[in-house]
């Protein structure tokens, strides 16, 4: 029953002046589910999030939060202040004149110091209760923003680019804390991000919003594994991470390409585009080969080399136990294991 879902969006559309920001978006978030809305800048993902929060009044469609209709046919039924959702802004939006404890307790209808103390303890900011936001680091401010959003125990938590202003070193820690917190609080999450690593690592489900002709529309709604391994389009394939897209001729479970015969993860027929991920490509050095190593990067657990080939540039993962080629080395690029293919458009 859709009423039992923390969030149900049906046919949502929105226009800013002459720009179409959202087009017929249908989306459901189930109880306890962590859903990421992934897309490049300008695809409408923040508009969607703000529509759910009640900060944008969408032109068309309906939104239900926790079984209650809050928007219908472009009209606001429930104001932002009455929706009962938690929202963590990209900029944190902490109240500068209040202390950390006052910020966290702001949305609580009655003064509830136990709840505030509890959240400060689990987010690791108990020592900063009496400080002002300006006295905190970026990571600490983000923890305050998260605790403040969770304090009123919302059924749905909205996160707007939560890692955009956090150092790379802190992201993993904050991500783990966020996952643990939302699980313990039993809250469902809709996170907006353009960071594919964060979306794939944290989410139960990833919804991709398209750009260009597909702007403002959902182009794929799937698990992180499917987004990466079985993308619905070349755009989603690129959004999911580094990929070489090759045209090929498919015949059942195999396809003929510039890299020879490839094994397909699902049977296809005729003209297809195959997606080769860096970890599926292999470089073997050999004088006179058609691939040349152009650059080389160290990534702790592996190296990534970029080779120019007859069909374009391809990224290749070289594990630390493999022999590492040098820049300028010649050789051949081969593809290991089954690859994903979709019909060429």
């Amino acid at each position, binding site marked *: 029953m859709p009423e039992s879902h923390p969030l149900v969006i049906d046919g949502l559309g929105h226009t800013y002046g002459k720009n179409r920001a959202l087009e017929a978006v249908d989306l459901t978030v189930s109880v306890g589910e962590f859903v990421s809305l992934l897309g490049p800048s300008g695809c409408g993902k923040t508009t969607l999030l703000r529509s759910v929060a009640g900060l944008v*009044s969408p032109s068309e469609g309906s939104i239900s939060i926790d079984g209650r209709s809050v928007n219908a046919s472009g009209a606001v039924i429930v104001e932002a*202040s009455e929706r009962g959702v*938690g*929202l963590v802004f990209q*900029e944190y*939006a*902490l109240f*500068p004149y209040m202390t950390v404890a006052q910020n966290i307790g702001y949305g609580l209808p009655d003064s509830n110091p136990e709840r505030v103390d509890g959240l400060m303890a689990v987010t690791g900011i108990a020592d900063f209760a009496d400080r002002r936001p300006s006295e905190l680091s970026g990571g600490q401010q983000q923890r305050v923003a998260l605790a*403040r959003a969770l304090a009123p125990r919302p059924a749905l938590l909205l996160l707007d680019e939560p890692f955009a202003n956090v150092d790379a070193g802190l992201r993993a820690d904050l991500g783990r804390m966020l996952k643990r917190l939302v699980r313990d609080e039993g809250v469902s999450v809709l996170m907006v991000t353009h960071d594919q690593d964060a979306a794939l690592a944290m989410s139960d489900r990833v919804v991709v919003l398209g750009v260009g002709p597909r702007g403002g529309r959902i182009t794929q709604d799937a698990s992180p594994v499917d987004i990466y391994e079985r993308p619905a389009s070349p755009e989603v394939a690129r959004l999911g991470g580094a990929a070489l897209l090759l045209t090929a001729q498919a015949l059942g479970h195999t396809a003929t390409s510039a890299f020879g015969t490839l094994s397909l993860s699902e049977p296809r027929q005729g003209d297809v585009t195959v997606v080769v991920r860096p970890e599926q490509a292999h470089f073997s050095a050999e004088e006179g080969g058609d691939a040349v190593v152009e650059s080389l990067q160290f990534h702790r657990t592996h190296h990534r080399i970029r080779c120019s080939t007859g069909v374009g540039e391809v990224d290749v993962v070289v594990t630390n136990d493999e022999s590492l080629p040098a820049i300028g080395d010649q050789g051949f690029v081969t593809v290991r294991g089954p690859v994903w293919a979709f019909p060429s458009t």
Partner: protein
Amino acid sequence: MNSSPLKWLGTAAIAALVAIPILGLAMAALDRQPDPITGAVSPLFQVSAGVGELLLRSVLLSAFVALGSGIVGTWLAWVEHRTRMLGAWAIATLLPLAMPSYLVAATMRSSLSPGGWIGDRLGLPHMTGFSTAVIVLVVVTAPLVQLIVGASLKNASAVEEEAALVLGSSPIRVFWDITWPRLRPAIGFSCLISLLYAISDFGAVAVLDVPVLTWRLYLAVENQDVARASVLGAATLVALLPMFFAARALRGGVQRVGVANARPVQPYQPSRLAVCATVLSVFTIVGLGVVLPVGTLLIWVWDGMSRSLEFVSPWGAITDTTIVALGGMLFTVGLASLPAYAVAEEERKGQGKSWVEDGVYLTSALPGVLLALGLIVAAVRFTRPFGVEVYGVVLASGALLMVGYATRFVAEVFAPLRVAFGAIDQRQVESARVLGAGAWKRFRTVLLPSIAPGVVVACLIGFNAIVKELPVTLLLGGATGLKTLSFRVWDRYNEALWHDAGLAGLWLVALALISAVLTIRWRKNA
């Protein structure tokens, strides 16, 4: 560029501007001359009679004006930036900034009193005295509050207000919890600016015959009663200084956290009461501050033409005004550039509030009558060893007038100059240097494009202020032989030659409006 010598030069220039008039006042107070006939020196209690009452009335007038302009200006600022009600009217509500207070007072007194073109029809009482002065000064200072509070509202990121909304707050609670604390310094500062404006105002209180310090000070100076003038001047300073230090404490006290976000706030739907309050505010400000003065001036001119009265050609006054305003503008901007650059450099280095900046604001807080008196006395005393004719030459040369304008308006041109100098990106300068550009090329290609809009805004603000200025022009400009438009309006109004006063007033308004509109346009680039 090494800022240290510039800083010292700037500090010296500002110190001189503050010190000369105050020193002059002090000398006048300490060195009271004996009566030329009796040879007796007036006792202090005699020259200070009634000063307490004048002081109280001045403070009360300023307090009422600050309260009124604070309420009206803050309301208009909120309506402008948080609703869609004002639209193009937002510009109209700022137009009274271009109107001299004496012109608003004179036209309001003439048109709304019995015998006036509106007063007769509505049966209004005589529009003079304390309450009318409060209305006039609220009308001309409310746009200042609207501008300052509006800038604070405009620059404020919407996300904190949105965060409070999403956490379940009503719009009223959002205003009190989030918007009000952020606006409080801007409201307090702008109210104090209105307070300083009102206590320094001379034109409106003179036209409306309100016995306050500045008006009585002018009369004492005009009657060459230096002893009385020095006591009144000291009382004015006593009233001013606490306000000045309060304004200093409030200036720029806005705290920000997080990342700036340019996303505008979703406009509020106004209630019927809010619409009524807005219509009333706009009607009052635009009606009394623009429509009524311009309409009355036109009627004065029309009346003169219909009665075939002879008009004095305005061209001489227009030329004199332009010469005086351009000269004063260049002198003031040149003088203010030194401390502005020094303060911008200090800010870049993360140093705290500067006394140079405080000196700038203190200088401009002095009422025009007071500083003119101080300059006259100082000039008389300093030139005495060289013979009395030297003072006459100094006064006639216009040098004292230029110093008077610079002292009066250094703060107004200082603000955009400081922003302009602060906007210089040292990385761009260094990039040009590394790329081989010499000092002149760096100045021409990097520095000048960066500071030019701010310098132009400063020039326009200076020009506008000098065109409208009255007491300094009257007291220091008379001996120069230059008869400016403000001088002409004052002179003809007091002679009851309305048609001439109307024509000069219309030209004055035109010049002030043109420079104000250009300021608004250039400010967008600054």
